[in-house]
């Protein structure tokens, strides 16, 4: 099994490299001079020369890529065009904020999603199932940025219960919590829908196995059946959880934009607006790496739970 682990790790490397190539290529895809893309406005001549040297713009493209890659691996993601600060610092802070949001949103979505999904499966065909499934469909269909706006309208503007923006500059824990509630709910909607549906489907598959049918026919809708269902549908559920967590981390852009939550999404949005390419590259690269490693972790955990799953 450790062989499988090694193999997966090895396979992750080309994926990461490929992702880094895409990120690197962004600079050259962007219309305009690539040098201008990484150059702050009104840069002094000395600065221009320095940048040209560090990035190696006079060298052929593959060499430029390798130079860039070498520096990236050492943690140097360049300097923001807007703030002149090292990108890595901004990204680090933003990532922390986004992780908090993603985690809280995941807790909500996973917990509620699994509960609703199991409820729907065990009460298949009846009112509770239809209700849960309806909630799921709504969750999957709703544009989360719109949901965020609606939440703001209802809870901030009309009822004035919760704040609309930001992460609170003076973070007392209560204030912080107040600020995180609405973004969490908005971000959790789509994953909630997806998870509910997947859990319901996986649980139904297990429930229709003959062994379980036999138990239920005897009237034993018990904890034992429940545990069996949960255990057997877990691998499928785990995959989805991993994917959805990734979605919440990477997809938080839109929700953070709505709530001005200072996470990676917010940073990304700002960078797009300001055409701050180094920041754009840095954020995307860090997020992509995170996502690849997350997928890897999910695969490995799954294999440990059930060694049969080891795919090549």
């Amino acid at each position, binding site marked *: 099994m450790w*062989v499988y682990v*090694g*193999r997966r790790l*090895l396979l992750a490397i080309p994926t990461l490299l490929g992702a880094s190539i895409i990120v690197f290529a962004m600079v050259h895809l962007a219309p305009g001079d690539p040098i201008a893309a990484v150059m702050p406005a009104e840069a002094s001549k000395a600065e221009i020369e320095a940048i040209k040297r560090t990035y190696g713009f006079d060298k052929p493209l593959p060499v430029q890529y390798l130079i860039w890659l070498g520096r990236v691996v050492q943690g140097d993601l360049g300097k923001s065009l807007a703030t002149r600060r090292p990108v890595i610092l901004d990204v680090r802070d933003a990532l922390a904020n986004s992780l908090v949001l993603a985690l809280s949103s995941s807790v909500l979505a996973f917990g509620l999603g699994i509960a609703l999904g199991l409820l729907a499966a065990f009460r298949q065909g009846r009112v509770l199932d239809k209700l849960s499934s309806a909630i799921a469909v709504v969750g999957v269909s709703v544009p989360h940025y719109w949901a965020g706006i609606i939440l703001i309208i209802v809870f901030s503007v009309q009822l004035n219960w919760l704040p609309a923006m930001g992460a609170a500059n003076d973070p007392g824990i209560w204030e912080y919590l107040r600020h995180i509630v609405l973004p969490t709910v908005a971000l959790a909607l789509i994953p909630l829908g997806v998870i509910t549906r997947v859990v319901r489907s996986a649980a139904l598959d297990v429930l229709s196995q003959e062994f379980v049918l036999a138990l239920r026919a005897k009237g034993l809708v018990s904890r034992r059946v429940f545990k069996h269902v949960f255990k057997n549908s877990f691998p499928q559920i785990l995959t989805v959880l991993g994917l959805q967590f990734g979605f919440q981390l990477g997809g938080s852009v839109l929700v953070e934009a709505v709530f001005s939550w200072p996470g990676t999404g917010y940073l990304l949005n700002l960078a797009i607006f300001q055409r701050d390419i180094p920041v754009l590259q840095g954020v995307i690269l860090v997020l992509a790496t995170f996502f690849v490693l997350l997928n890897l972790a999910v695969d490995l955990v799954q294999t440990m739970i059930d060694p049969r799953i080891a795919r*090549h």
Partner: protein
Amino acid sequence: MSTPLLEVLGLRKHFPLRGGVLPRTRAWVRAVDGVSFDVAPGETLGIVGESGCGKSTLARLILRLIEPDAGVVRFDGEDVRAASPSRMKRLRRDMQLVFQDPYASLNPRLTIEATVAFSLLVHGTPRAEAAERARALLGRVGLDPRLHGQRYAHELSGGQRQRVNIARALVLDPRLLVLDEPVSALDKSVQAQVLNLLQDLKAERALTYVLISHDLNVIEYVSDRVLVMYLGEVVETGTAEALSQSPKHPYTQALFASAPSMDPDRRMDRLPISGDPPNPIDPPSGCRFRTRCPFAMPRCAEVTPPLMPVGTAHAVACYLYEVEPARLA
């Protein structure tokens, strides 16, 4: 002796096993390891063996659905392996395969009439004629084309699907039919019907059968000659009577003895054979059966015994029957 319709010589197929961190070949599954036999026109050769002995691979090798690693396959004197793609397409009309799984062997999206007609369409028969012949053949195998022709595979029972399989195989008017476990997935009552159908068809169309099964009853019921396989190799071959009345190879003996019987006199107290069939990835050296053989000798571990004659058209691969070469003083 007339020319055999099918000649197989030294057929071999090893499948690579990839494993480890890098995609490197770690080991080989020796599915078919030097199999040779002949089939005379008009006879039924039964090939019997347990799961994993390479029977299904053999079936596909004969029809060149898988490329052999080594060996010769000759159909009516013609080398099948050397055939060009166009020649192969013509050859396919003469050699057909009836598959084991009645469920997976039919396209769920085609009506059964279309399934049977497809083979003809591939060879250029005009649509109307293909449909006509397909319907005729469906009727011949016991499925009224007016009732069943437009049905889909999932609407039929296992026995009916196998009939469709047979019809599909026969629509090209082949001379040789290889049947890979044709009745294994069916209920016993249906098995007899399908086997009887096969016998009738064989007589009507002067066919030659190679029938593969793990079920001795089936083999005994239809075969003229029998070939016993173990772990990719032939261990015994002879007429059906000879093998059932006096099996020579310890494995064959165990097979026949372990067939459950309704006859109380033939019931056993002890199992004649023990252990599980070993892994075709790492077969024992020399005679592959020696690890389960009650008569194993030191000789058996050294070199694989070749097929040795023990009677008219009866051969065994076992050192027990070796005629000593010069122990002459």
